[in-house]
Structures are given as structure tokens and as C-alpha cells.
């Protein structure tokens, strides 16, 4: 019983180490709540159903890119017949989703998917209308 101090000291050190990530998370005030995306404005609908866009938006972006740049086809007809101008900044963001920080980044940061290399060339619409500002 003379080792009691040592045993408890070791045990608490062990517990502290094992639970360290929890404390770190608490200190950083991280949460497991998913990103909150702005509600869709009335009468607005996405180019494809939400579930499809969640898993396949990157494929659609790639195909839009190839259609516009390589095939000079500048519009896209959705399944419901709506015709969209193929344009990341003007159509996807300015018309619907708003600045990339509020839309793209919120999910990408949450999912831990490193920043894709879109924004070194493409511009994001500013939160407040202010054309000419760099993003």
C-alpha cells in the first residue's frame, strides 16, 4: 500500500493523456454540429436535387468546365428543363449560393476536405455587392 501515491499519479497521468483530445476540442470550442447553410430563397431551386449535388457537385463542376472551355457550350439544361448559363461565379455563387466562404468553405472545412484549387483564378462574389473587390 506504500505505492498508492505512485499508482494514482500514474493513473491520472494516463487519464489526462487519453482524454487530451477531448479537452483540446473543448478549449477550441469545436462542435460536431454540421455546417448551417443559408435557407433556399422562395422560388429558388437547385440545378439538381440536393442529394445528388451533395455527392456529385464536383463531377458537375468538372463537366461544366469541360463543356464551356473545351466545347464552347455555354448553357446547361437541367432535368426539369431550366437552362442555366455555365458560370461558377455568376451562376452558382452570385445567383444562388452567395460568397464561397458562406457556402463552399463551410462544408469543406467541416468535412476536412482541403481547399480545392478553384479560387486562385475564379472570384467569389463579395458578401455585400462591391464589384471589383478581390476575394
Amino acid at each position, binding site marked *: 500500500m506504500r505505492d498508492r501515491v505512485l499508482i494514482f499519479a500514474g493513473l491520472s497521468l494516463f487519464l489526462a493523456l487519453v482524454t487530451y483530445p477531448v479537452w483540446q476540442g473543448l478549449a477550441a470550442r469545436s462542435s460536431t454540429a454540421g455546417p448551417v447553410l443559408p435557407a433556399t430563397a422562395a422560388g429558388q431551386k437547385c440545378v439538381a436535387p440536393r442529394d445528388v449535388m451533395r455527392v456529385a457537385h464536383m463531377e458537375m463542376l468538372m463537366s461544366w*468546365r469541360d463543356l464551356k*472551355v*473545351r*466545347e*464552347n457550350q*455555354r448553357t446547361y439544361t437541367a432535368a426539369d428543363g431550366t437552362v442555366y448559363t455555365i458560370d461558377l*461565379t*455568376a451562376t452558382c455563387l452570385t445567383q444562388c449560393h452567395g460568397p464561397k466562404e458562406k457556402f463552399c468553405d463551410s462544408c469543406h472545412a467541416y468535412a476536412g476536405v482541403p481547399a480545392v484549387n478553384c479560387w*486562385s*483564378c*475564379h*472570384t467569389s*462574389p463579395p458578401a455585400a455587392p462591391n*464589384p*471589383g*473587390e*478581390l476575394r
Partner: protein
Amino acid sequence: MKVTRKDFLRIAAGSVVAAGTGTLVHALSGSAPATAATVGESKQRWGMVIDLRQCRQQGECDQCIRACHQTHNVPEVPNPAHEVKWIWNEPFAKVFPFQQSEYTRQADGGTLPVLCNHCASPSCVRVCPTKATWKRGDGIVMMDYHRCIGCRYCMAACPYGSRSFNYVDPRPHLRQVNPEVPTRSAGVVEKCDFCTARLAKGELPACVEACPQGAMVFGDLNDESSPVRQLLAERYSVQRQPHLGCGPSIFYLV
């Protein structure tokens, strides 16, 4: 079977003739796939005629350059070694080095606007390893910045120096950003795209629209009634170094 020397010689001669005929037939029938890089055939071939007499009347003018560079977010990098340009003024002697004599030099004077020639057989397209640059069916030599790996083979291949490399991030060197056009990033090559986005909307290229003298005329070289063809039929024109075989689509009325 015993092969005599005579038989051997006969067979050898026959083989040589057969092989030679095969090669000849192949060479005659199979035209080289020179147009392999051309995507989406169309009847047009966009081209431009620049009337240097009109241009000269305006004196030191850079309105086409400013319009182009503002439209396409072309940066103004202070270091001349890192310069990026789509259209710029170049001294006559540099543009037409073999059209100089000591008697004509005075008339040549000054500078003239130069840009990518959107060549008929573009050497830049032939060397690009990634097909980041290719020739569209309507004659426009296009760039896909997504694909460019920045190897700069195209810059070495272009005899006109029409291409610029982004040695530095261009964004800090933009005075104002046109939100309709993406910028480029460090590590890619860029050049004039004949305003493909404007053409798709039915507009003329920005430089053509900006010229106060109407010195730049844009149109379809394959259409005999187009304004470019009419000018070319009426007046004497020159291309930049046509002997190099690229077949420029930009013509200068001198």
C-alpha cells in the same frame, strides 16, 4: 530446295520493289493527320485585319490594349521580366524585320498593335504536352488554364512571342477585377483568346470595339462577303513572317 544465286537475287529485287511500292502507296494515300488537334469543325475561321494607316493617325494610342487587359484581368506586373500581355504595341522593325529598307524606315515609323495570330497551323498547339492549348474549329487557338502545367513549351514554339507566363501571382497586380472573367494564377501561360466569351454573346472583341479609328476589323476569313475579306481583296496586306508556315489569321494593311 536449292536456292541458286540467280533465285536469291530475283527474290531480293522483288522484295525491294514490293516494300518500296508499299511505302509509296502509304505516303500518297495517307495524308498526315495535321488537323488532329482541331476540335469541333465549323465553317468559320475568325481573323482580323488591322489598318495601320488608321492606327497611325491616332498617334500614341493604347486604347485597344487597355480595353483588352481590363476585360480579361491581365495584370500590370512592374517587373518587365514578369510582364503579362495579350495585346501590345511593338516597333515596326521588330514586327516586320524583313520589310525594312533605309528609304522606307521613315514611313514605317512608330509602333503597331500585335497579339496572338490564331495561326492556321499553330506551333504552340503542336508542342503542348497536355492539350491545354488547342485549335478550335472556328480557328481560335484556345487555352484551358485548368490544364496548363506551365511547362512553357508553347512559349518557346510561338515565333511571335504571343504568350506570357505568370511568374508571380497576378492578382496583386490587378487594378480592378472584372468579375465576369476569372483571373489566372502563378504558373500558367496565358494569351489572347479572341474574346471567345464575347463572341459567344454575339459581341465583337473588346479591342475592336475600343478602337476609336475603327482600325481593327474582325470577321470570318472563310466568308467572301465578310468585311475582313473585302478589305483583303481591296488592299495590300501583310502577315507577320508568313514564311515560318504558321499561317497567321491577323493581317496588317500597311
